[in-house]
């Protein structure tokens, strides 16, 4: 069971790397989802090691929050794509128009 702690930390950091490193918005959202799953795994491990059952419930709520986040994030990406025909972070640097 102790290897899963390292796995959770690794997933979180890999997601962090992905969000910084990736170019287009959908991949950034994918890596954010990876970070969320790392956190969820950590919650379950803590609920197992401390015996506090509320941590597993927190996993359900993190899933709900990640579902809402993905829903709204992808809607924004769609709206951005319809307006600017691109989802690459380099082309969306101008705030004004």
């Amino acid at each position, binding site marked *: 069971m*102790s290897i899963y702690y390292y796995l959770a930390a690794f997933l979180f950091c890999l997601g962090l790397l992905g969000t910084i490193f990736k170019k287009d918005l959908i991949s950034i959202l994918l890596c954010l989802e990876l970070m969320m799953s790392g956190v969820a795994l950590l919650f379950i491990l803590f609920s197992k090691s401390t015996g506090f059952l509320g941590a597993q419930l927190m996993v359900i709520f993190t899933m709900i929050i990640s579902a809402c986040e993905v829903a709204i994030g992808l*809607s924004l990406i769609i709206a951005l794509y319809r307006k600017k025909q691109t989802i690459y972070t380099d082309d969306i640097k101008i705030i004004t128009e």
Partner: protein
Amino acid sequence: MAIDIFLTIITVIFALMLVFSKRTVVSAFALLMTLLTLALIYFQLGSIFLSAVQVLINAGAIAILFVFVMMLINLEQFQNNREKSKIKLVISTFTMLVVLGVLALVINNNIETLSVNNLTDNSMNALFSKLFSTYFLPFEMATVLLLAAIVACIVITTHEKQLVEEETELHKMEPKL
């Protein structure tokens, strides 16, 4: 113990495939496989309900949403003319290594207390009785959050043309009042 290592290796492979793949659809597919192997890990850790919810919500709805959006936005036109800047790669790997080092250090220090399993009963009704006794308010607030997400998604994606029509209808009604 062997199963733990086996599952960890599979998850790590799919996570690396997710981050370091050239095409976005391949990374979406890798995300689906990571979420499925995580569901297996949850089951192996004993929380059965969470692995079922993980399969249904994360792997069954969110990952499908990603592939849906990828089909809507054709990414092929961006693929070739994007050069990867080396500095960004260096900075991101540096931050990742720092954060990973800190986390690994923290875990290493108290690995003994962390890896002991003193969860008394991991059954579902213990989990649900706790959900509906102490955590009843978040259970209710979750629907309000989802309602806000529904409204936001519809308003963002329905085109302005539709909203403009509603305004014109309102103006038409006014003279009659």
